């Protein structure tokens, strides 16, 4: 039913635009003045929405930061934590990942490595490292290849800890990560804590753009949402959960390509709060070439859409969880409506610049968006004490990076709506962690 709705929406938009073009072609002399006014109005409306969005995010991220400064600096007690490392063909990066876990500044934890039927030496590496660091610290499980979700579920079933940290097999955690995340569980209503994922391989323009995006895009949104204790996506590389919560909601499901997003929604709808800890840092490798980047973002977009569609019945039920309802709609806006609006904006202003010759309008549109990106970037870099040398990437964001991603999101949405099959794929890793 929703597919018919979406197709009808696009069809009517297309017909409306075609009618506008048809009208303009036959009345182009008279339409020129009208079009200047109309396009200025569209520009103002679009930029107004963008500015409000950035302003709201920055404001609530600032409030969350002020509140965060008043929290205890670290955990006062130390519940036993199980760190689950699902690994599929991670032979290149597993040692660095496990070394970072062994170096964790936390007194009571265990590590469970789940080899998901790897075809390389992942299992042998895990066994060797368990021997090197002591078998009581690291346990190794192997299973036939069943996907990340099944590997995580297997780890959860074997976990002894009251809290469970789920991460990626190619991530590296900082020593203070666990202490910083665990302190939030003093609040019994908190079911999970999302960590701060950062890009480690800042080697070329693409990876630097992603590094800035993680800081000034993803983290900014999570920080703002954390003020309301409603983070909508706990990232795969770093999330800490109460074991009780995972058992209550049924663990990870494999029916979407964004199992982390889908799990987060289930936890939210079960009534638990989800916080974000900026000092619980996980370093991860970002795709270094466009092919890998495309695959990753395509999977993220389809996975997020699948997760929202799976829980679409909540979209029409504002009560009893009104705040969660608002945040799910925000997620729909950020993942589907917003990219569509940006693409529409691009096409509209390109058309206006070409057809009517209003080249100023496209410069104003780009300049305002870039200024907003720079303001958000400076704010987030200052908050997280990050590398200011990433700031120049903000200039390229609107020219290339954002447009490229919006096209990926557009095609991912269309493919998902029409049920076109896709595979998981395996991102190329270079062991940079």
């Amino acid at each position, binding site marked *: 039913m929703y597919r018919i709705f979406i197709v009808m929406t696009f069809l009517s938009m297309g017909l409306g635009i075609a009618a506008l073009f048809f009208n303009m072609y036959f009345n182009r002399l008279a339409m020129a003045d009208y079009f200047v006014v109309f396009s200025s109005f569209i520009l103002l409306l679009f930029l107004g929405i963008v500015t409000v969005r950035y302003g709201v995010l920055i404001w609530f991220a600032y409030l969350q930061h002020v509140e965060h400064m008043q929290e205890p600096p670290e955990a006062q007690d130390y519940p036993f934590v199980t760190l689950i490392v699902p690994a599929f063909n991670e032979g290149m990066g597993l040692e660095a990942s496990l070394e970072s876990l062994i170096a964790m500044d936390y007194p009571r934890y265990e590590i469970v490595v789940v080899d998901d039927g790897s075809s390389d030496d992942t299992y042998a590496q895990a066994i060797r490292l368990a021997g090197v660091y002591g078998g*009581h610290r690291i346990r190794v499980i192997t299973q036939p290849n069943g996907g990340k979700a099944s590997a995580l579920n297997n780890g959860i079933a074997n976990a002894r800890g009251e809290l469970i940290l789920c991460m990626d097999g190619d991530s590296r955690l900082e020593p203070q990560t666990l202490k910083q995340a665990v302190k939030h569980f003093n609040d019994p209503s908190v079911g999970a804590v999302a960590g701060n994922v950062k890009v480690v391989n800042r080697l070329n323009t693409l990876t630097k753009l992603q590094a800035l995006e993680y800081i000034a895009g993803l983290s900014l949104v999570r920080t703002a949402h954390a003020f309301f204790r409603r983070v909508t996506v706990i990232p795969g590389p770093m999330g800490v959960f109460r074991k009780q919560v995972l058992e209550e909601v049924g663990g990870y499901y494999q029916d979407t390509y964004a199992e982390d997003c889908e799990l987060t929604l289930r936890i939210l709808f079960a009534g638990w709060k989800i916080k974000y800890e900026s000092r619980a840092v996980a370093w991860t490798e970002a795709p270094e070439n*466009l092919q890998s980047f495309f695959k990753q973002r395509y999977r993220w977009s389809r996975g997020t859409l699948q997760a929202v569609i799976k829980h679409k019945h909540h979209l029409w039920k504002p009560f009893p969880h009104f705040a969660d309802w608002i945040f799910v709609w925000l997620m729909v806006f950020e993942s589907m409506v917003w990219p569509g609006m940006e693409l529409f904006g691009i096409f509209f202003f390109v058309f206006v610049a070409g057809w009517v010759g209003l080249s100023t309008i496209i410069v104003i549109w780009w300049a305002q968006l870039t200024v907003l990106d720079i303001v958000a970037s400076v704010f987030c870099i200052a908050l997280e004490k990050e590398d200011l040398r990433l700031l120049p990437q903000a200039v390229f964001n609107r020219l290339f990076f954002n447009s490229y991603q919006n096209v990926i999101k557009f095609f991912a949405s269309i493919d998902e709506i029409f049920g076109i099959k896709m595979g998981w794929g395996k991102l190329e890793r270079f062991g940079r962690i």
Partner: protein
Amino acid sequence: MELIPLLSTVILVATVVTIVFAVFSYLAYRAREMKAPRATTTTMDKDQILLEPQFFKRYRHPE
């Protein structure tokens, strides 16, 4: 050449090239997906709860 028309030309060209490139990336991705062999993986029932532990080769810590 004045600054605004120059800037607008650069922005216009960069945006159009990026979008065209993204469309070709998508077409290339679809072509690769159609050629790639499909691996068979276990699928979970939507209502399935946590898996029972599966041990292919159980690791035992040497006593």
